[in-house]
C-alpha cells in the first residue's frame, strides 16, 4: 500500500485537494470554481452516495435483482461528468451512477434495469448518455465511434467513455485506443482504477501504471487522484479541451478505490483484507471536500444539514418509486427487437398473447 500512497501523495497522480482537505497546487493543472459550484459538487457526491446506499438496501430487501455500488468513486465519476459540456456524450459502465446522475438521469431511471423491468432505462440521445454497459470494454469502442461521428459532423462535442482497471485487458479497449489514435478522435478515455476487478487486484495484472498505456498508442495519459474531485475535474477539462480542439484522445487514470463489494452478490472478504479499506477510508472523496468547504467557510452546518435532508427525501422517493415499478406487459418483449415489421416476431407475439389468454378463459 505504501507505494500506492506515495503515488497518491503526488509522485504520479495529480492532486489539488489532499485527503486532509488541504488545497494544494500542481505545476500543470489547476481549477477555479465558484462557491456554488463547489457546493454543487458536494451535493452531487452526497446524493449519489445516498442513492447508492439506498439501492444496496433495496437489493437486500429483494426489491432489486442486483446493485453495483460506486461507493468511494463519487469524486472520479462526478468530477469527470460535471466537467463535460451539455452536448458531450458519456458512455458509462454499470457502476457509473455518479456519471448518470450528473447527466440528469433520475435514480428511478437508473434502477429500472436492476429492478428487472427494462434493459435500459433512458433515452441516450436525450440525455447524451449511453446505457449502463455490462459487457466489459464494448462501450469504449462505441465511444470512439461516436467521436468519429462528431468529427465527420465537424462538431466540437466530445465523447467520454468510462471503464475500469480490469477492462484494460480486453481487446476491445485496446482496439478503441488504436482507432481513436488512427482517427485522432475527440474522445476521453476515463479509466477508474478502483484497484479491483472483482477479485483481481490491479497490481497483480501489471507492473506499470494504467495511464502509461496511452503513450505507446500515440496519445497522452495522465494519472489523477480519483478521490480528489477538484483534480479529477481539472484533468478532465484539459482532456476535453484537447479533444474539442482537434488534438485527439487522452487516457485519464483516476486512481481510486472500490469501497463496497463488486456487486451485492459479491463477498469481498474472500479476497481482500479489511485493512485496505481502512486505509482508503481516510481518503474518502466526500469528507475531504466537506472539510475544505467548511475550512474555507464556503459551506456551513446548515448547508450540510440541508443536503442531508435532501438525501432523506430522495431516499424516500426511491423506496416508494422502486416498489411501484411493475413489470411491463409480457408481450412487450417483442417490442423493439426490430424497428420495422418482422414476420417471425409478429407470429410469436400473437402465439404468446393467445397462449396467455387461454388461461384467462379457463379461469373466467
Amino acid at each position, binding site marked *: 500500500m505504501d507505494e500506492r500512497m506515495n503515488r497518491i501523495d503526488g509522485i504520479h497522480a495529480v492532486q489539488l485537494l489532499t485527503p486532509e482537505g488541504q488545497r494544494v497546487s500542481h505545476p500543470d493543472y489547476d481549477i477555479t470554481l465558484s462557491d456554488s459550484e463547489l457546493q454543487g459538487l458536494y451535493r452531487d457526491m452526497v446524493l449519489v452516495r445516498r442513492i447508492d446506499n439506498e439501492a444496496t438496501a433495496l437489493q437486500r430487501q429483494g426489491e432489486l435483482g442486483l446493485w453495483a455500488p460506486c461507493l468511494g468513486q463519487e469524486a472520479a465519476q462526478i468530477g469527470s461528468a460535471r466537467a463535460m459540456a451539455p452536448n458531450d*456524450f458519456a458512455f458509462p459502465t454499470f457502476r457509473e451512477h455518479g456519471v448518470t446522475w450528473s447527466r440528469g438521469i433520475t435514480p428511478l431511471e437508473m434502477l429500472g434495469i436492476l429492478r428487472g423491468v*427494462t*434493459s*435500459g432505462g*433512458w*433515452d*441516450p*440521445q*436525450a440525455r447524451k448518455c*449511453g*446505457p449502463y454497459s455490462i*459487457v466489459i470494454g*464494448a462501450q*469504449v*469502442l*462505441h*465511444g*470512439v*465511434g*461516436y*467521436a*468519429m*461521428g*462528431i468529427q*465527420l*459532423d465537424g462538431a466540437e462535442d466530445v*465523447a467520454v467513455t468510462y471503464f475500469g482497471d480490469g477492462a484494460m485487458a480486453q*481487446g*476491445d479497449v485496446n*482496439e*478503441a485506443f*488504436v*482507432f481513436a489514435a*488512427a482517427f485522432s478522435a475527440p474522445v476521453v478515455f476515463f479509466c477508474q482504477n478502483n484497484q479491483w476487478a472483482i477479485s483481481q487486484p490491479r497490481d497483480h495484472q501489471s507492473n506499470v501504471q494504467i495511464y502509461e498505456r496511452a503513450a505507446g498508442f500515440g496519445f497522452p495519459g495522465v494519472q489523477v487522484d480519483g478521490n480528489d474531485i477538484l483534480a479529477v475535474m481539472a484533468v478532465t477539462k484539459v482532456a476535453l479541451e484537447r479533444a474539442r480542439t482537434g488534438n485527439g484522445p487522452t487516457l485519464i487514470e483516476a486512481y481510486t478505490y472500490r469501497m463496497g463489494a463488486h456487486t451485492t452478490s459479491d463477498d469481498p472478504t474472500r479476497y481482500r483484507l479489511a485493512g485496505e479499506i481502512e486505509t482508503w477510508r481516510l481518503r474518502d472523496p466526500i469528507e475531504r471536500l466537506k472539510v475544505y468547504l467548511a475550512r474555507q467557510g464556503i459551506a456551513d452546518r446548515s448547508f450540510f444539514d440541508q443536503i442531508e435532508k435532501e438525501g432523506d427525501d430522495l431516499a424516500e422517493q426511491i423506496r416508494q418509486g422502486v416498489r411501484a415499478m411493475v413489470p411491463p406487459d409480457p408481450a412487450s418483449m417483442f*417490442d*423493439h*427487437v*426490430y*424497428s*420495422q415489421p*418482422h*414476420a*417471425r416476431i409478429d407470429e410469436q407475439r400473437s402465439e404468446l398473447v393467445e397462449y396467455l389468454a387461454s388461461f384467462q378463459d379457463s379461469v373466467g
Partner: protein
Amino acid sequence: MTNLTMVKAINAGLRKAMEHDPKVILFGEDIGRLGGVFRVTDNLQKDFGTHRVMDAPLAESGIVGTAVGLAMRGYRPVLEIQFDGFVYPSFNQIVSQVAKFHRRMAGAVMMPITIRIPYGGGIGAVEHHSESPEAYFAHTAGLRVLTPSDPQAAYLTIQQAIACNDPVIYFEPKRRYWDKGEVDESVSALDVGSVADPWRARVVRTGSDVTVACYGPTVRTCLEAAQASPDISIEVVDLQSLSPIDFDTLVSSIERTGRLVIVHEASMSGGVGAEIAARISEKCFYTLEAPVIRVTGFDVPYPASRLEEYFLPDLDRVLDAAERAMRY
C-alpha cells in the same frame, strides 16, 4: 439495363445509396484506394472522399464496435468484413451490441448498420476464406440476414439493406461475384419501396414435382440442376432473406409440389436448412409426400481447396436428392 458482374452491381448499389443519403458511410479494411480485395468499393473513395469511405485499422471488433457509436451519432455505416472467416473477432459486438442495442434502448436508438461479408467456397482459397457462417447470425435475434444470388438482386438488396433501420448481415456469394447479369440501374434507393420486398423469397423457376430451396451461391447450382433434370420438374426458390425466412412462399410452393429439398454450403447440423426443415415439416405435415431432404456441406471444417468440389453441393447431388424425394 446494363450487363454487370455482381461486384459491379453491388458497387453501383453502394453508389446509389451514398448519393441518396449523406449519412451512408463505408468502413472496412482496404476498401479505400484498393477498393476492397474484391474491388466491390472500387472508386467510391475517389468519388465520395476519405470521410465517407474510410479505411479501417486491422481489427474487426473495432470496426463493428465503432460502427455502433457512429450509428448512435446518426450515421448509417456500411461495413466490409474482408472474408467470411474474419467476422468472428467482431462476433461479440455483433451479437451483444449491434443485435440488441435497439431493444436495450426501448427503440430510442436505431442500428442501421449493414455488414457486408463475402462468403462461401468454390474459389480455391486457403483456410478461413470459404466459410458459410450465416446460421450463427440467422439464430441471433435482432439481426436481419440477406444474401443475393444475382447482380440485379444484389444491386437492389444492398440498397434496401442500407435503407433498413435494423442491422443487416449482408452475405455476398463470392464465387458468384464475377457472374454477369442484366441490371436496371434506373431503380434507385428512393424507389426501393416500390421494388420487390427483400424479405420475401423469390420463385426463380417454376416446377411441379419438387421444390428446391436455396440461397446465395447455390441458387445458380440449383437452377442448372433444374435445367438438367430429365424427368423431374423442379421449382427453385431463392430464399434471399435468411432472417426472417419467408415461409409463406415456401409453403405455397410445397402445396403444389409436395416435396422439399434444401441446398446450402454450410455444414448440415444446425444450418439454416435445419430451421426450414423443422418449420416446413410442422407446417406441411399433411402435405409433404416425402421428408425434407437437405443437401449441404458436411459437418467438417471447410476442407483444403482441392477437396472442396466434394464438400460443396453440386448439380449431381441436387438431382440425386430430388430423385430420392421422388422415390417416397
